[in-house]
């Protein structure tokens, strides 16, 4: 929630400026209203201004609903602050609602007293009806609890756009720029970045570019001149570490991470994927970077995608396949083959609401057990998860490193929230990454000049011998085989041995990953264990609880299989272990089984992330329950 501080007005004209620490703004409108774009622009302006920020885009159904309906509402929430933040904010301080449906779908998330800015032009009979309002909420008193500002955005936009020669139907489309201008004024955001971007993007289409610009300025001026708004606000730049930043979402960060991993491994990237929401953008992004030697293939289905990637891995590429839940199901048989072959294969699963088609555009964390166990037979696979949009970058590099260094498929988990959410990302220096160059087998490693594809090193890792290398010809396959030679073997003891050695190889990866670090209060009794995108909410929630006097510590797992080797010992130190997850308790069940610790679950499966408040109140409740 926005924390008012003293009202300071240092700017000569206009309304008083009040300084805030942080603000949550949500833009909501019809899918066709350009809310994602508006949010993106506002985000960038805030970033450029130097705030820390976290965003949460929230799409409606997959295809466009008829304009004006609840199903068609699209929203974008931006949380910006003058300090380090971790969540997109629990409740918006300001809701911008472009039509009745947007108001209706979002108003319940606001605390009383919050600000609501509506496009009053859109509140006519037809739209009200479509949104399911019997009476006009702007008139029937139902919004009494809020500070409501009706602004005729459409007509004002049409009006100013006339001057640049835009016809009304065309001009209307710029009304989101009006909203952007107005909110920018309210929060003292610079509009220059948006002006520049508009010119770059729409420059060729003068009418569009100019009506956008006119609308943007009109919105700003409306705030400035109309005597409607009591005050404007300011959120100072955050004290982020010095450096060069950009705003990045999880899918882009994942794509950049994959490109970078290829460079660090010294081998070309081969991505084979089948489009699926919310993972498709990784394919789209990688398809654009062929100059990095990145090959991308849109396969006929997820099975083919996994298969093609596996084929490319056999050929010595950094093989990647990206997908979401339903696609993960389909890849399971091929993953089992990769386990049996011991072939590096990076599978990215951007988790979404399930089961089945479920809520395809929403977020969830319910594929962890599928990643762990979703294949017949004993087929352990390392699992790595990212915690923030920017963290997708380094986490996917880590996943790729494990794959090629340990000759194994690896599943990398992100989710819809990370994929589309963004945060400021300090641009890393590529020179500072630790390279992990792959060394392919070049020489026979067996007696009489033979090549032994399953002769292991001390980490139990087999050599990677590439087609094209004379003298290393060999055959691999899904049937059980002898260790060392790889020859098919039906010997009973051999099978037992091979299952154990494959498992041991994965377990030993624990020697090659960092220990977990405990954040928060080291002497607390309560430990909150998380994984994936809940990181920010947990961190903020624990801070909140701390303010209420409840001490707690936090461990956030990047490596879910194998677990870091000090995890057992860390868990032992706490009396209460809580695992907040966007599922029914999947990590908790792994911890319980592995460590016999009574890990408790806090579940939320609503397609939206935890709020800090939800975490805080659960921790406070646990603290109270304790004797």
């Amino acid at each position, binding site marked *: 929630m926005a924390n008012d501080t003293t009202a300071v007005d240092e700017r000569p004209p206009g309304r008083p400026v009040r300084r805030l620490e942080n603000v949550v703004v949500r833009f909501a409108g019809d899918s066709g209203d350009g809310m994602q774009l508006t949010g993106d622009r506002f985000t960038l302006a805030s970033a450029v201004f130097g705030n820390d920020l976290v965003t949460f885009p929230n799409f409606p159904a997959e295809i466009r609903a008829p304009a004006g309906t609840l199903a068609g509402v699209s929203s974008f929430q931006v949380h910006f602050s003058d300090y380090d933040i971790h969540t997109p904010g629990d409740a918006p301080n300001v809701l911008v609602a472009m039509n009745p449906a947007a108001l209706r779908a979002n108003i319940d998330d606001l605390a009383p007293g919050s600000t609501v800015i509506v496009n009053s032009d859109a509140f006519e009979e037809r739209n009200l009806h479509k949104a399911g309002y019997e009476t006009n909420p702007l008139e029937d008193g139902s919004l009494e609890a809020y500070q409501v500002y009706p602004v005729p955005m459409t007509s004002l936009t049409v009006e100013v756009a006339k001057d640049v020669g835009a016809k009304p139907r065309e001009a209307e489309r710029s009304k989101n720029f009006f909203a952007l201008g107005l909110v920018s004024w309210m929060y003292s955001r610079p509009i220059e970045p948006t002006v520049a971007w508009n010119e770059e993007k729409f420059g060729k289409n003068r009418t569009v570019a100019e009506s956008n610009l006119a609308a943007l300025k009109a919105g700003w001026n409306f705030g400035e001149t109309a005597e409607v708004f009591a005050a404007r606000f300011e959120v100072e730049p955050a004290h982020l570490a010095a450096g060069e930043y*950009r705003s990045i979402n999880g899918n882009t960060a994942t794509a950049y991470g994959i*490109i970078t991993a290829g460079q660090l491994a010294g081998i070309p990237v081969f991505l084979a994927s089948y489009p699926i929401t919310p993972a498709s953008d990784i394919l789209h992004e990688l398809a654009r970077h062929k100059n990095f*030697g990145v090959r991308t293939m849109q396969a006929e289905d997820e099975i083919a995608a996994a298969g*093609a990637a596996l*084929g490319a891995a056999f050929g010595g590429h950094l093989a990647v396949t990206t997908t979401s839940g339903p696609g993960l199901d389909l890849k399971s048989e091929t993953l089992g083959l990769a386990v049996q072959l011991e072939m590096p294969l990076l599978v990215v699963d951007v988790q979404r609401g399930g089961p089945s088609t479920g809520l395809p555009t929403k977020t969830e964390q319910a594929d962890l057990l599928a990643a762990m166990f979703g294949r017949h037979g004993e087929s352990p696979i390392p699992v790595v998860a990212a915690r923030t949009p920017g963290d997708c970058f380094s986490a996917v590099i880590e996943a790729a490193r494990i794959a090629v260094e340990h000759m194994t498929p690896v599943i990398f988990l992100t989710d819809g929230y990370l994929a589309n959410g963004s945060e400021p990302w300090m641009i890393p220096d*590529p020179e500072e990454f630790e390279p992990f160059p792959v060394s392919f087998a070049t020489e026979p490693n067996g007696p009489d000049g033979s090549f032994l594809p399953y002769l292991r090193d001390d980490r139990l890792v087999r050599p990677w011998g590439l087609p094209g290398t004379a003298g290393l010809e*060999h*055959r691999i*396959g*899904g049937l059980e085989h002898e260790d060392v030679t790889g020859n098919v073997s039906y010997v009973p003891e051999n099978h037992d041995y091979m299952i154990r050695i494959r498992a041991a190889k994965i377990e030993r990866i624990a020697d090659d990953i960092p220990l977990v670090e405990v954040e928060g209060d080291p002497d607390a009794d309560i430990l909150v264990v998380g994984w994936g995108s809940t990181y920010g909410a947990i961190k903020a929630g624990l801070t909140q609880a701390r303010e209420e006097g409840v001490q707690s510590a936090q461990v956030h797992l990047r490596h879910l299989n194998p677990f870091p080797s000090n995890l057992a010992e860390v868990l032992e130190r706490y009396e209460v272990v809580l695992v907040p997850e966007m599922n029914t308790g999947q990590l908790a069940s792994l911890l319980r089984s592995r460590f016999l610790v009574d890990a408790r679950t806090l579940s939320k499966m609503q397609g939206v992330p935890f709020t800090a408040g939800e975490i805080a109140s659960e921790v406070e409740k646990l603290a109270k329950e304790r004797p």
Partner: protein
Amino acid sequence: MTEATKESTALTRKDFQTDQEVRWCPGCGDYTILASVQNFLVEAGAQPEKTVFISGIGCSSRFPYYMNTYGMHGIHGRAPAIATGLAAARPDLDVWVITGDGDALSIGGNHFIHALRRNVDLKILLFNNQIYGLTKGQYSPTSEEGKVTKSTPFGSIDHPFNPISLALGAEATFVARTLDSDRPHTAEVLRAAHAHRGAAFVEIWQNCNVFNDKAFELVTGKATRDQNQIRLRPGEPLRFGPENEKGIVFTSHGRAEIVVVAEVGQDAIAVHDAHRDDPSLAFSLSRLSSGPYGPTPIGIFRQVERPTYDEQMAQQLAAAQERGGPGDLAALYRTGGTWTVEA
């Protein structure tokens, strides 16, 4: 063939054999095909290290274990997908797919048709024995209607695929049929397939003497083969029969029909041309028979040029590098704008 290959012509069939025991049933047609392929590779001066065999699951799919090249015994039906990835990543390799009628046309049907339409540079050898051998005798998508098998004790009710028609319908650029027992013909077809740039589909009729013995007898057997083999010879009139007395004409409805040459005159007989861009000729020929049940074309139905998937992929990469230079991570990270926080 390149210089490198010429140098290695000293190789013999033994160089392509592994030390693994060949585990097919005695008498299985797979043995002959294995020998044909090994001999062909010797003849072609293939380099073992540049040659890769990828298979699915089935009796036929054990093939890679017996080839002293690179190889992968994959999972059921997925060999074309795996091979597509390998060929696209490594256009320098010679990638062969070994598959069966169940593997390629039942579970693997989708990858099969997509590999063909994409024209990935793969040589796909489909060992068609019209049965599931490995799982001990269920009918396959090429088994004849009414087939009595373990899973169809009252006869199958599935109308079979005609693999040649299916491949042509799937935009294949090279489509041929040969017979396990006819080694010279197999060699001829392998030669053309190997020379083809793009996806080459070769259906090999293969006898499974345990679960579907003599399925191809009418076309391969001494007594009847002269009547039933219509040899497709490029540029030659489509004639066949013990005395070459029969021929093929195309009707005004686009259909291929068998006629007696003496009755219609030699000039009426169509000339075989596998290089026509339009696959209609090849398709019509494929409809002369739906299997080894009468006069059946053997040989190359279609052989046309079309850019291959892997070479186009490589071209796009090269073009992008030419345009944008090699990738620069520092620049990549900065796409879309940055800002600076001062210390």
